[in-house]
């Protein structure tokens, strides 16, 4: 539904004027204006760190602006907390869902607005109301299912229903497709269209051009905290959008591999691994990684990637199958032994699993080798040797700030990730397992990480890359393996791989 460009307050449900927000010295939002209208899907497009989530968090009351005003239906409103926003008819589905895992879908939806009958919760009425909403907007859910056991797509629907149950007129969806398979994305598109049709105003926070083109009516582009442009999607091309979003040339084609693919370094045979609830997450998975190659595993989060990595690293028990590393059996060996055999791991969460934030940079760098010379001798640490080593690493990897004695917590995300990488690569592992190595990093840092990984591969080593970002996989990997429900359902040469085909495999639609 093409509409005239913003500025006309007519029919505007929400108007944000001159919103400014500072984080330290960074201007996360700089004098941003935004208008949201009924029945309109408004995409908020921009790269990581452009300020999209911040702007919407201000609208939802999760933080306060330093300057600017918000008008709801023409009335100036101060939104100081999410419950105020909800009362104003604004609902938000965050990237990390805010759901109570132990409760059922129904309980999550009615929490805080429970229908009562004689002092008890009237579950029957709740169920009826929710069922009506689900029917009206095409959001099929199982209200009795425990959220902890539900799929990501299901949880997302529950979050949307939560907002609708509270009579939201404005629905903000923060990167909703990040965790969905292509088929589930189709489902979401339908839902969004239905919501708009029924007069809701939908805001889509995203960095994916294709989604914008597919479902949005209007698009506002943010870059570095500023609003660059707002215009109807029908009047723009993907290239235009991309250019405005990034502000400069798009990155070049993937780096070519300069090493030959060698012998098999890691072989996984028919692996079975259970997840934390005792349910098999890896179900008969087999793969091979060769020296001199990067094998990228892509798939929607929750299809067994975490369990696979943990099993290989010895952090999770393998119930059946084998892991063979350069001819040696590594199945269910202790992590220490696996590390000593030449396996390196860059875990998914650098702050939880990769670093001990309260230890110094130097101490983190020797986390895997502190027990051996030159870093220690007969149980005594050699601080000078550790310092020398740390300083060398900091210099060659350009880690900032360059003081090896400060706590790792003081460094930025990108530098923290570099510490993890440096630690692993410095040990020159024959196989490096890298999970989401550029998660949460700005493009500059991400590029550095990519370069380091490629260089490691070029030295003839093997890398097993697990990524939820298809673009990253395309860019880095030589071969792409698609994981679905605990098994590899297809392996493609990266250069020849087609996103459509990959998407199909990711959502179970392949021959796998």
């Amino acid at each position, binding site marked *: 539904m093409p509409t005239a460009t913003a500025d006309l307050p007519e029919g505007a449900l929400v108007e944000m004027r001159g919103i400014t927000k500072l984080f330290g010295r960074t201007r996360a939002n700089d004098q941003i204006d935004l208008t949201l209208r009924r029945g309109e899907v408004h995409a908020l497009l921009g790269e990581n760190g452009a300020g999209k989530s911040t702007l919407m968090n201000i609208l939802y009351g999760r933080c306060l602006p330093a300057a600017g005003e918000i008008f709801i239906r023409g009335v100036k409103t101060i939104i100081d907390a999410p419950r105020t926003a909800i009362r104003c008819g604004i609902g938000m589905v965050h990237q990390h869902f805010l759901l109570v895992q132990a409760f059922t879908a129904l309980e999550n939806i009615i929490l805080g607005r429970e229908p009562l009958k004689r002092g008890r919760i009237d579950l029957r009425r709740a169920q009826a109301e929710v069922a009506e909403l689900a029917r009206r907007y095409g959001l099929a859910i199982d209200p009795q299912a425990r959220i902890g056991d539900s799929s990501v797509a299901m949880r997302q629907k529950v979050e949307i229903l939560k907002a609708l149950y509270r009579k939201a007129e404005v629905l903000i969806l923060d990167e909703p497709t990040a965790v969905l398979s292509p088929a589930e994305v189709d489902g979401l598109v339908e839902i969004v269209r239905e919501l708009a049709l029924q007069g809701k105003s939908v805001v889509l926070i995203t960095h994916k051009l294709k989604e914008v083109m597919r479902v949005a009516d209007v698009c506002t582009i943010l870059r570095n905290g500023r609003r660059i442009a707002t215009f109807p999607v029908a009047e723009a091309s993907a290239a235009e959008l991309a250019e405005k979003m990034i502000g400069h040339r798009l990155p070049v084609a993937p780096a070519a591999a300069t090493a030959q693919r060698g012998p098999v370094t890691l072989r996984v045979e028919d692996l079975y691994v259970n997840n934390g609830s005792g349910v098999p997450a890896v179900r008969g998975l087999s793969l091979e990684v060769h020296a001199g190659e990067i094998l990228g595993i892509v798939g929607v989060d929750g299809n067994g990637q975490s369990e696979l990595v943990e099993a290989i690293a010895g952090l999770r028990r393998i119930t059946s199958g084998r892991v063979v590393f350069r001819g040696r059996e590594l199945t269910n060996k202790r992590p220490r032994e696996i*590390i000593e055999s030449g396996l390196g791991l860059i875990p998914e969460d650098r702050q939880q699993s990769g670093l001990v934030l309260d230890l110094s940079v130097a101490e983190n760098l020797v986390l895997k080798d502190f027990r051996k010379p030159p870093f220690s001798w007969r149980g005594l640490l050699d601080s000078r040797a550790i310092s020398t080593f740390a300083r060398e690493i900091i210099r060659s990897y350009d880690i900032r700030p360059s003081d090896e004695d400060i706590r790792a917590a003081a460094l930025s995300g990108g530098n923290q990730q570099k510490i993890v990488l440096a630690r692993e690569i410095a040990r020159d592992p024959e196989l490096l397992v890298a999970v989401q190595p550029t998660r949460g990093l700005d493009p500059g840092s991400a590029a550095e990480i990519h370069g380091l990984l490629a260089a490691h591969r070029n030295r003839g080593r093997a890398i097993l890359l697990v990524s939820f970002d298809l673009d990253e996989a395309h860019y880095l990997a030589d071969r792409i393996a698609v994981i679905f429900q605990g098994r590899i359902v297809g392996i493609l040469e990266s250069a020849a791989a087609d996103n459509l085909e990959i998407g199909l495999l990711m959502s179970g639609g392949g021959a796998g």
Partner: protein
Amino acid sequence: MIRVVQVRRLFATRVDGGLISASVAIFLGLAFGALILKAAGIAPLAAYAVILKGAFGKPASVMYAIVKATPLIFTGLSIALAFRGGLFNIGAEGQFIVAALAAALTGYYLQLPAAVHVPVVFLIATAAAGLWGGIAGFLKARYGTHEVVSTIMLNWIALHLQNFVVMTTGFRKPDSEASFTIRESASITLLGEWKYSGPGQSWLQDHSVVQDLLRAPVNFGIVVAVAVALALHFILKKTTAGYTLRAIGFNRRAAAYGGIDVERGLVMTMVAAGAIAGAGGALHVMGVAKNIALLTSMEGYGFDGLAVALMGNASIAGCGVSALLLGALKYGGAKMQAVLGAPSEIIVIITGAIVFFVGIPRISRELLRARRARIGRNDA
């Protein structure tokens, strides 16, 4: 292996504080105590004066205070070490009891020359306590049982076990509720026999200061305490064992990913903590009590050690200072009943209040952060 990594941290172990915070907490604790005293109709300043005079009035008092503080240094260090390793060792009380029991048994039943007897008793008692601590560590590592509740249960089991042993004929001193005393060869009291002997008494008559000092059961315990404290400091900073403990204490998951055997680390931490608390118990029996008695309730060394460790912000030096402070408070506080007719339990209340205030994170930082958030600034 993965069990330990998966076990959710029930309690956030970080204790936040510093020299300023501890002093403020102590001041506030004393103020709270004053309030309670006032409510009970007792003049607070007079009461505190009694405590001060009681603890520092005479050289003997200072010695008594040190003697009283010594076990607290050990239990405090034990708990501080466990804190650093990510564990709450509420079981210091039970570990103390187990070591005391072992020391009393080996001190009485074994017949060895003094030079050998003392180290043997000390080692056996400390090992027993280490084992006791290890039980809780094992339960945590293997079954994920939270060490706070399991060690509390172990405390009571130790207490009743001790009572059982004390009352068995052969060990029990007839017509008493205590055991036989340990042999002289196992005693570590300084000049113990001598100061009661004939020539000893007459020499002391002429040297009143020393006589006064020796009134208290001065023993080597304090020397061992200082040595243990120094050793711990060194171990934590400079050894691989210390690194392992600190890494596990800060981030169990990352430590596991780094190849550290977390299960083993947790058990070893509890064993070490148990041994240190036990050292206190062993030395107490060997230097002060000389026997063990029927316990109707916990004596409190372990719980006071908690206060010591918290006041000292889990640092080695902090434990030493806090232990001396608390020892002085307890010794001086005991005088209150006699001098003022005021209940000495006020010391327990003051200790509780101090711990209460120590637990509150730096209030100024909290307020500052809240204020910044409102204005839209955040040092992310």
